[in-house]
């Protein structure tokens, strides 16, 4: 009896963490926001009331009404339909790039952490120097050189957002390898691979998961910024960053063009951040304890 209960508890650590996550207000709100956006991204082509490409010059910059809930943009396209579909491209690109970033950054970070010593210090200073350059500058150089298609954006985002992951993975590795269970495995004579795989990785993975969620939200913001600057999605594909960019010129007299995409983008990013916060707490690696003073 007791065995069955404890067994179940341990087998499903993922499930326990998930339960803990949704039992926290931030986790529940965050996760539902994220899920809402993900579901919307999938079904939006089927539920959008109008074709996102359809231009109607008689509707140009018209105010919201019963038919066009969020009005129309400067080309007379339905803002509501475009907002519904505006996250598809961003979610697709970042959804692929984030895991890639966490994997390569995590791999290199763990490697640096294991190498340790002077070489690790030197390599980390290189990473620091790299991080000190503004990301937008670095990314624009790549995009200007190679073009701005999805095939370029995914590896570019994955590369640049993997660099900060190195720091996190390295720090987590340093914390773990100093602990006695690693020494104990070493004294027993386990191979290096086995120590990394069994002792180190499960403990570093938690930190990487939280970091991955944070990177995702940063990456979404970066993607939208690129679109805003005209380097992301190419028209007429709807994208929040691009929509904000297009509509900002008319903001003083037709603010509805901006409001829809702004709310959509910020709710998604807030949702991801809330989820990441709650995830860190559920995994027990949250460091943002309330200060005693």
């Amino acid at each position, binding site marked *: 009896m007791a065995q069955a209960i404890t067994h179940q508890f341990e087998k499903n650590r993922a499930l326990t963490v998930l339960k803990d996550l949704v039992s926290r207000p931030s986790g529940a709100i965050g996760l539902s926001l994220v899920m809402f956006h993900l579901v919307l991204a999938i079904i939006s082509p089927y539920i959008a009331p109008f074709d996102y490409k359809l231009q109607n010059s008689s509707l140009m910059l018209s105010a919201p009404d019963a038919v066009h809930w969020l009005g129309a943009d400067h080309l007379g396209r339905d803002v509501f339909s475009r907002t519904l579909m505006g996250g598809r491209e961003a979610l697709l690109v970042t959804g692929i790039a984030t895991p890639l970033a966490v994997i390569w950054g995590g791999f290199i970070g763990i490697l640096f952490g294991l190498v340790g010593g002077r070489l690790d210090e030197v390599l980390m200073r290189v990473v620091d120097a790299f991080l000190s350059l503004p990301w937008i500058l670095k990314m624009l150089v790549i995009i200007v050189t190679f073009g701005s298609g999805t095939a370029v954006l995914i590896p570019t985002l994955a590369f640049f957002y993997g660099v900060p992951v190195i720091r996190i993975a390295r720090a987590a590795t340093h914390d773990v390898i100093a602990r006695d269970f690693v020494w*104990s495995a070493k004294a027993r*004579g386990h191979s290096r691979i086995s120590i990394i795989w069994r*002792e180190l990785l*499960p*403990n570093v993975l938690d930190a990487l998961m939280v970091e991955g969620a944070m990177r995702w939200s940063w990456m979404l913001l970066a993607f939208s910024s690129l679109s805003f600057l005209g380097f992301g999605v190419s028209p007429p594909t709807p994208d929040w960053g691009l929509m904000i960019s297009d509509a900002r010129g008319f903001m003083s007299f037709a603010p509805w063009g901006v409001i829809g995409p702004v709310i959509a983008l910020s709710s998604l990013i807030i949702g991801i951040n809330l989820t990441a916060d709650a995830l860190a707490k559920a995994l027990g690696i949250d460091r943002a304890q309330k200060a005693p003073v």
Partner: protein
Amino acid sequence: MNTSSFIDIQNLSVGYTSRSQKIIKVLRDVSLTINRGESVGLVGESGSGKSTLALAAMGYFKRGLRALNGSVHFNNINMLGLDHDELQKIRGGNLALIPQNSGQSLTPTLRIGRQIAEALRLHSGLDQTAFDDRIIEILSQVRLPNPAALINRYPHELSGGQQQRVAIAMALAGQPDALLLDEPTTGLDVTTQAHILELLRDLARDRNMAMLYVSHDLGAISRVCDNVVVMYAGEVVLTGSSRQTLLAPKHPYAHGLLTSIPRLKQKELPVALDGRPPMPGETITGCAFADRCALADDQCRTASPPLTRLESAESIRCFHHDKIDQLTTSSQRVKQRKAARKGTGETTLGLEDLAITYAKSGFLTQFLSNSPPPPATVDNININIEKGETLGLVGESGSGKSTILKTIAGLISPKNGGIILNQDTKLTAKVEDRPSMNLRQIQMIFQNPDDSLNPRHTVAQILAQPLRLYFQLSGKDLHDRSVKLLEQVRLGEHYLSRLPSQLSGGEKQRVAIARAFAAEPEIVLCDEVTSALDVSVQAAVLDLLNVLKKERGTTYIFVSHDLAVVKAISDRVAVLYQGRLCEIGPSDAVYQAPFHPYTDVLLGAVLEPDPDTAPTLSADDVVELSPPAKGCPFQRRCPKKLGEICENQTPPAQISNQGHVIHCHIPLKELH
């Protein structure tokens, strides 16, 4: 109310609301009174609520905790009714706290003088110009050498004992009438601890302070406190004078705690107090201690005993306190627990001229400074360990005892010398180069099971590692073997699926022991394996190690800073100072005259839970950072130092009897 005490806690309950909206009590209707000039010791296992109670005395509750009912008065002020600012005036001024880890409670970026000045500014009302003199006065009060120079030092430049003294000095800055001490000497070396306790005792006496001394160490309590309060599962179960409580405890729990402490005069292993205390929030019907109590009957399991006052001025929460004598006899019956004795005469592990060095100055520093390299951390260790014996290694922190263990395990490479296994195999320095066979023969158990068990692995996975690695077991064989190992460490099969976080401290250490024995080792290295555990649990772990040794004839090398623990388990004891051997011999001989002067100092500082023994403090509690380049390692602290000979010549090995060797220039006859 006319007999109002200085610190007066009445019927206090403290608890928190769990995430399932249940109120969980950490303290249950606790009353505690302390008069001016009285010192009260608060004892109990970890989780008994003793620290919570001490902090509640200053109106402080850890985050999430709150007072549910009851009152806390200090000097007739209701501490629970004050706001933050009013509390702040009292805390640190009239009522001061000395925390456990003072190294962490001092601000690392402030010089010692500034930190104390801040306490003076807040709580003394002295003029700024008078600060310097007052700081020096306080620092000399806590017997810190050269206070004028100390003012300009940073906390990290001081040793642990000195830091603790500075923390005491800060507490004294506000001229307190009451001190709360939360395990103030835990983590300090024996000699340092003894010095600090003497200091606290004298201070309390001279200044007529009230003290509340929280500790799990009954030895320390017996030295400092007039009265003792024993707590169990958030309740007070016994209060009385320390003499009564320590010599003839009337509560079965206090009795069990006392018998589980190893003592120097005892020849056998202490008797363990089995079981574990209930967790906060667990439903308790009847007496909370009933499950672990040999006297428990049906009444104890159904009704909860009230705290009753006896004629002897003790208060006790037990139905059967008059039957306590039965317990004494029943525990005397288990005298055969004597440590399994003695090897076969065959050497299983030989340490030959072992030298280990940590300090590796860079090429450039060596080239530029032209100074000789620092002396090795561990040097000239020659010990032959017989098959089936237990060798104890004792010494203060920095004595190199753990370093030697790690070197044997292959985790640190020696600078010089060799480790010979079974008289024929010279072990390679690095663990990576050792054949699997030799790795299996030597296993290590670490100090803190929280750190030595991977928090992400279940017990089954933890035990599977050596079984897979050395015996290639899998499937049903693996499971059966794991279950058997758990049985041997007295844990049930259902533990297999647990994670370390679901185990108590003692259970975790049992799993760590099971993991070491899974390899069927010949030699087990025990590195302070009981230091992180409660005394009751410690006794059980020592007993387990002893039983396993009896069954398998395993050889132990047992490292500990606790001389009584080492005596209880070891056949032979080696005393180390600064990585050099001072004395080695059969444990009975080492703990008797003739002594090496260092052994004498160590033994003198041991605190026993007996109000009739007092420690003798014969050497300063200074901490040396590196061993002297030549001569006797103990030359700088030795109370019996002869003179230049101790500084220049390596002391000779003098053989007393039955292989008892003392490294000292003083003739054996004078070492009594």
